[in-house]
């Protein structure tokens, strides 16, 4: 089931950034639960490379907010061990690219232990990292490596696109007794949006319909939600009404909201900043093709990063990642397909 954006009256509306929303979630949960501690590179006095932990060290001290050496594998492995011993660690990998350094501990250890211990050991662990390209961060700092976490049983994966979602999903992650891979987008940290002061949580496995529409369903992930919404505004001028859905979590995955939307629109476009091959977009296409093929009036279409390593040059980098223009033209083609 989908969950609509909160109804917030204009005067009660408070606007904060995506980075601030994450900090608030951590602050509230760390005050509530002394078992939570936070480790990562530069997350202490500096407040995080992206200000994603600003103020936490000052409030909670160096015992619970710890800067680490550049050793992602140990960060993750220590997180697993601490979780087994009764803590609820948050391990900030900062750049999602570097999760590859730690991946064996996340996939071979964190995701398996609850199952292979017959449910005796829980692994309450949040692995946090920021993916995506922003301002030519180059081939080692721009990737969107999340599809393989969705592939792994035993992991939950959150992929928030708005300040509201960051806060609600992070709070849920910090109350979940499973390993959660929490993926911010570094291009979104400065984006502002309404976040109520009152406490709320967003359950995992509930997509958000970010815009309702009639003619075509666009499922977009992370930063691409914003581009899809901009594209939808432009498409409206061409008489095309697009529904934009943000799954918000990849695992658990809310298929129902997408299937319901496709039943209405008959058309599906998936927009993902990650590569197409074996990606989340492939999984979503498979879900709809296997469960709702006869609802479709045209073939499923995917708009993904082009299959090349991220280039530095702004001209190339902007070309490789799906742009609003590309989304507009490709969605329009799908919407008009009468074959």
């Amino acid at each position, binding site marked *: 089931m989908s969950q609509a954006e909160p109804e917030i009256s204009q005067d009660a509306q408070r606007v904060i950034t995506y980075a601030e929303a994450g900090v608030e979630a951590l602050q509230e949960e760390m005050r509530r639960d002394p078992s939570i501690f936070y480790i990562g590179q530069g997350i202490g006095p500096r407040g995080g490379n992206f200000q994603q932990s600003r103020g936490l060290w000052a409030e909670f001290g160096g015992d619970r907010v710890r800067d680490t050496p550049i050793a992602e*594998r140990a960060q993750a492995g220590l997180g697993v*061990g*601490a979780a087994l011993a009764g*803590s609820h660690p948050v391990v900030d990998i900062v750049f999602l690219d570097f999760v590859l350094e730690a991946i064996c*501990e996340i996939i*071979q250890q964190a995701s398996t*232990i609850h199952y292979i211990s017959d449910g005796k050991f829980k692994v309450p662990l949040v692995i946090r990292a920021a993916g995506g390209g922003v301002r030519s961060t180059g081939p080692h700092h721009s990737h969107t490596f999340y599809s393989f976490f969705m592939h792994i049983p035993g992991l939950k994966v959150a992929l928030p696109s708005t300040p509201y979602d960051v806060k609600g999903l992070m709070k849920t992650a910090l109350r979940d007794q499973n390993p959660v891979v929490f993926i911010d987008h570094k291009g979104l940290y400065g984006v502002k949006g309404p976040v109520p002061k009152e406490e709320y949580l967003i359950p995992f496995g509930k997509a958000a319909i970010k815009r309702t529409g009639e003619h075509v369903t666009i499922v977009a992930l992370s930063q691409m939600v914003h581009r899809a919404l901009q594209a939808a505004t432009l498409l409206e001028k061409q008489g095309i009404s697009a529904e934009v859905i943000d799954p918000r979590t990849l695992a658990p995955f809310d298929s129902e909201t997408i299937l319901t939307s496709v039943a209405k629109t008959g058309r599906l476009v998936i927009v993902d900043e990650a590569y197409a091959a074996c990606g989340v977009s492939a999984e979503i296409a498979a879900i709809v093709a296997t469960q709702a093929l006869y609802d479709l009036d045209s073939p499923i279409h995917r708009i993904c990063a082009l299959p090349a390593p991220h280039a530095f040059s702004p001209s190339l980098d902007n070309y490789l990642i799906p742009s609003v223009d590309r989304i507009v033209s490709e969605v329009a083609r799908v919407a008009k397909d009468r074959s």
Partner: protein
Amino acid sequence: MVKPSKELVLSLYRGMVEIREFEMKAREIFRSGKMPGFIHVYIGEEAIATGICAQLRKDDYVASTHRGHGHAIAKGISARSSMAELMGAIDGCSGGRGGTMHLYEPEVGFLGSNGVVPPGILIATGAALSAKVRKSDQVAVAFFGDGAVNNGAFHEGLNFAATWNLPVIYVCENNLYATEMPFEQATKNTDVASRAAAYKIPGYQVDGNNVLEVYERAGEAVARARRGEGPTLLECRTYRWFGHHEGDAGTSYRAKEEIAKWRELDPVRRLRDKALADSLVTAEEFAQVDRDVEKVINDAAEYALKSPQPDVSTALDHVFSN
């Protein structure tokens, strides 16, 4: 070395014999074709798990390796539930889902044996970090072989523990071969204990086939960790009598003379002979332990062989915790 008490000698002897007999029984069942998977037995190395764990409290932590049956038993998992786990049976400590390389038991702080060589180092370090953040005086032990020390996780883990003064004891069971790779072909510096200097922590080489020496060194390291003074690296030199796993004879890469030499250093017999020579324990008292252990192991085998396999209707249980 301080003169041990009779009770201590008998307790360490019993610990080693229980592991030895457990492993001998596991080999027997494996050879009968009834046991699934591949087992890595600990025979020849029993003094290390026994001597170290004898210094731990029930609420201290242990993280182990693929050769982990001995660590599990020494930390307090029963022979019954360990053997049932080796059978993949529901009465195993991991309900049959983990098997020989994935024994788990929170009740005794056993954070798992492991199918991957170095992660136990990081898991124990993380448990020690948790204890420190929680302001508990629990300590954690990581057991690992010589094969782990040339892996990056060894460096990362020890560096973290040293920097943060974490209550952890790193126990390298240097049995001179990583699978079939002789240690001197895997590294230039074969003195594992000397590597502690790189982290400015204490490192000691220990005769891993002398349970009393292991016990004494472990006592110092555990006390140091509990006092909040940080980690210690113990390199326990030892040897596995058999191959890397059952089915590997272990003779294609190791000389018969070398194997025979190390068998002469049998930690069980050494303790026994010393205690007899010192007139500390009688032959009959040792024989009584042997008989008691035999009963425990036979009972464990019978229990494990009767325990059913998990029902397939439970195959997807426990993927997630509620």
